[in-house]
C-alpha cells in the first residue's frame, strides 16, 4: 500500500505540470484492490466510461485513473516522460510517432493476435475502432437544397449559395487539432478536390473548432449549417441521443477517410497486467460482429461503408511524413492561405 501510495504521489507530481489547464477531464474509478491502471486518452470521459465500467466488471480489483487531454498535449506529455500505463488516442499519426520513437512497450496476447494485420503494428500498437470522417448537416438550414454526395457537388453547392452558408460552416482547426490535421493531410494526399474545397470554404468565413463534439453540437443547434470532416462516431452518438432529424450525416462517395483509434502500453508501464487486460478487452470489442450498445464502432466496416470505398488510414511509417516540422509548416501555410482569404473566425 505504501508503495502504491508512493507511486501515486510520484505520478501526480510528474503529471503536475500538465494538470493546470491542459487536462480536460480526470476521474479515478476506484477498484476493490490497490491496483491502479493509469490511462492517458483523448477520448471524452462520457464516451469511454462504459468501457471502464465493463473493464471493472471483469476486473473489479483494478482501479482506473482516466485522464483526458487533447492529442497534441497527450503527445507532448508522453514525450516529456509522463507516467502512465496506457496511451489511447484518435490521432493515429502522433500515436505512431510515439511508438516509432520507442515509447511503447511490447505486448502480445491471443486477443491482439486475432486483430487483422492492418489493425496492429508489430506487438506495440493496436487499433480498436475504425471511425470514418463524415459531413454533418443541419436539416433545417439545408431545406430545399439537394444533398451533396461528392466533394465536387459540395463545392458547387457552396459556390451557388454563398449567402446561406456564410459563417455557417464548421471544420477542424488543423493547427490545434491533431485529428483535424490527420484528416486534412490524408485528404490532401488522396483527392485534389481538397484544396478547391478549402478555397471555397475560405470565402465563406468558416468557423474553426478543436473538437468534433462542439461542432456537432453547433450543427444541432443550428448555429452551423454544415460541419466538414467530423468524426462519424461522435455524430452517430449525437443522432442516437435523439436530435429529432435536426442533424443528418452525409458520407462523401468519392473518397472518405477512416481513422483508427489506437492504444499502446507505455514502455515504463508499472501495471502491465492491468494494461494488457484493458488492451485485450478493447481488442475483443474491436472484433465484435454487431455494433451493440457501445459508443464507439468496431474495427470492421459495415457493408455500406465498404461500398463507398472507405479505407482506414494505414498504420505505418508513412504517417511520419506530415509530422515532419518542415512538412507541417508547409502544409499549415498552404492551409492558412486557402482558408484565410477572408477573416477566419476563431
Amino acid at each position, binding site marked *: 500500500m505504501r508503495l502504491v501510495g508512493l507511486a501515486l504521489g510520484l505520478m501526480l507530481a510528474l503529471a503536475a505540470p500538465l494538470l493546470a489547464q491542459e487536462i480536460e477531464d480526470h476521474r479515478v474509478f476506484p477498484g476493490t484492490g490497490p491496483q491502479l491502471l493509469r490511462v492517458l486518452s483523448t477520448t471524452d470521459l462520457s464516451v469511454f466510461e462504459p468501457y471502464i465500467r465493463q473493464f471493472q466488471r471483469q476486473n473489479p480489483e483494478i482501479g482506473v485513473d482516466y485522464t483526458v487531454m487533447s492529442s497534441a498535449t497527450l503527445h507532448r506529455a508522453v514525450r516529456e516522460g509522463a507516467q502512465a500505463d496506457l496511451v489511447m488516442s484518435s490521432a493515429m499519426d502522433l500515436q505512431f510517432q510515439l511508438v516509432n520513437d520507442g515509447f511503447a512497450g511490447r505486448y502480445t496476447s491471443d486477443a491482439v493476435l486475432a486483430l487483422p494485420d492492418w489493425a496492429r503494428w508489430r506487438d506495440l500498437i493496436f487499433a480498436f475502432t475504425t471511425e470514418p470522417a463524415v459531413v454533418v448537416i443541419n436539416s433545417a438550414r439545408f431545406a430545399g437544397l439537394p444533398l451533396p454526395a461528392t466533394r465536387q457537388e459540395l463545392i458547387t453547392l457552396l459556390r451557388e449559395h454563398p449567402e446561406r452558408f456564410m459563417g455557417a460552416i464548421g471544420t477542424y482547426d488543423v493547427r490545434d487539432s491533431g485529428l483535424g490535421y490527420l484528416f486534412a493531410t490524408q485528404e490532401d494526399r488522396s483527392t485534389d478536390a481538397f484544396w478547391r474545397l478549402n478555397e471555397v470554404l475560405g470565402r465563406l468565413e468558416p468557423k474553426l473548432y478543436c473538437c468534433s463534439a462542439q461542432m456537432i453540437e453547433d450543427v444541432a443547434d443550428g448555429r452551423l449549417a454544415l460541419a466538414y470532416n467530423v468524426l462519424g462516431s461522435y455524430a452517430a452518438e449525437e443522432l442516437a441521443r435523439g436530435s429529432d432529424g435536426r442533424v443528418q450525416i452525409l458520407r462523401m462517395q468519392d473518397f472518405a477517410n477512416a481513422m483508427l483509434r489506437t492504444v499502446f502500453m507505455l514502455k515504463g508501464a508499472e501495471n502491465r497486467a492491468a494494461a494488457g487486460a484493458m488492451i485485450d478487452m478493447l481488442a475483443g470489442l474491436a472484433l465484435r460482429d454487431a455494433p451493440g450498445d457501445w459508443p464507439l464502432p468496431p474495427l470492421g466496416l459495415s457493408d455500406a461503408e465498404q461500398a463507398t470505398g472507405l479505407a482506414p488510414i494505414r498504420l505505418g511509417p508513412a*504517417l511520419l511524413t506530415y509530422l515532419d516540422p*518542415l512538412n507541417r509548416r508547409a502544409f499549415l501555410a498552404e492551409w492558412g492561405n486557402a482558408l484565410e482569404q477572408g477573416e477566419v473566425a476563431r
Partner: protein
Amino acid sequence: MRLTASIGQRLTLLLAGVAALLSLLSWGMVSSLATEAAARTQDNVLAASTTTIAETLRSEQGEIRLELPYAAFAMLGAISEDRVFYRVTAGGRELTGYADLPPPSPGPVGQIVFDTGQFSGEAVRMASVTRLVGAGADPVAVTVTVAQTRNGVQSVASDLSWLAGVLAIAFFFVAVGLSAVAARMSLRPLNQIADSVSRRGPADLRPLSRPAPADLAPLLSALNRLMDRLRLSVRRSEDFIAEAAHRVRTPLATVRTQAEIALRGGGTPAEKEQLRRIIRAVDESARSAGQLLDYATVAYRVEDLARDALDLSELARRSVESVTPTAAMRDIQFTLDLQSAPVRGDAVLLDNAIRNVLDNAIKYSPEDTVIAIGVRQRNGDAILSVRDEGPGFGDDPPDALTERFRRGANTGGIVGSGLGLTIAAEVLRAHGGRLDLRNREDRSGTCVLLVLPLA
C-alpha cells in the same frame, strides 16, 4: 567366419555422412543467402527512400526547401514493420528529422552510402546521400539519411533459415534413403554372383561365365581358378578310383575262376564251404569295384552331359530287360506300366541310374515277389517309379541313403557297396531331376521315383 560391417552398411553410412555434410552446407549457404537477400532488399528500399527525399530538395530565395514525400516512408512500411528514422542536414546545420541519428560515413556527392549503427536501443541500417543544392552564392551540401531497424530483415532471414533447415533435414533423409538403395543396387552384381555360385550343384565346378562389373573381375577369376583346381583335383581322384577299381577287378576275376575250378575239383565239405565263401567275398569286391568304376564314369560324363532326345519308357524297358535274368534267378517278376515320356539326357548315364535302382530293388526284394515299374508324366516331369515288396528303408531319412557308401540300417546280410543310389541320384541331379526314396504307404515295400524334367 568373423563378420565385420557389411559393405552395404558402410557405403550407406559413408553416403549418409556426405549427405549430412551437404545438408549442413546447403543450410548454411541458404541461410546466409537469405540474410544477404533480405538485407539487400532493405538496402534497396532505403536507397529508394533516401533518393526520393533527396530529389525534393530545392532552394527557394536562398532557403533550402524540402518536402518529405509520403511515398518515401510508405515504401519502408511496405517491406516490414520496422521503425523508421530520418535526418536531413544542410551544410552541418540540422534541417529536420532526428538530430541524434548517428552521422553517416562521408561519401562522394550523389552516391548512396550504407551504414549500420545503433539508435534508440536498436540496431539500424542507414542509407545516406549527399546532394549539392544551390542556395545563394555557394552550393550547400545537403545530406539525407534514412534509417530503419532490422527486425524485418532478421525475421525474414530467420524464417528462411528455419525453412532451409527443415528442407536440409528432409534432403538428408531422402539422401540417406537413396544411399541405402544405391548401396544395395551397387552390391547387386556381387549378390547375384554369390547366388549363382550357391545355387550350383555340389559337383558343378564349371567356371563362372556370367557378365560381371570390371571391379569384380579379380574376384571372379580367382574363384574360377580355385574351381578349376578343385575340378582337376576331383578328376584326378576319380581317375585314381577308376584305375584302382580296374586294377583290382582283373585279378579278382582270376581269383574267382581259380576258386571255382578248385571247387569243382572236389575236396572235403569244409574246404568247399571255404571256397564258396571266397567266391562270395570276391563277388562282393568285384561288384564294388564295378560300381566304383560306374561312379567314376558318371562323374566324368556328367561334366560334359549329352542332351539327346530320349524316351524314358524306352530306357526303362531296356534296363528291365537287361536285369530280367538276374531277377528270374530269385523268381522275381516285373510288371510294366509304361507311358511315353520324352526327356533329354545321356542314355548311358540314365541307363546306369535305372539299372542301379533296379539292382537295388532286386537285391532287397524277397524271393517270388513282384516289382512294379511305371513311367508317367506329371506336372512337367517324367517320373519312373520302381515299387518293390522289400523291407523298406527303415527309419533313416531316405535322402541320407544317396550319400556315398551309406547303407540302410536294415540291409542285414545283403551284399552292397552303398554306391548304387548315390550314382542314380547324381545322374538325376545332373539332368536337373531328382531321386525320391520313400516307403510305400502301406509299408509293404519301397517306392523309388526317378524324376526328370520333360523335354
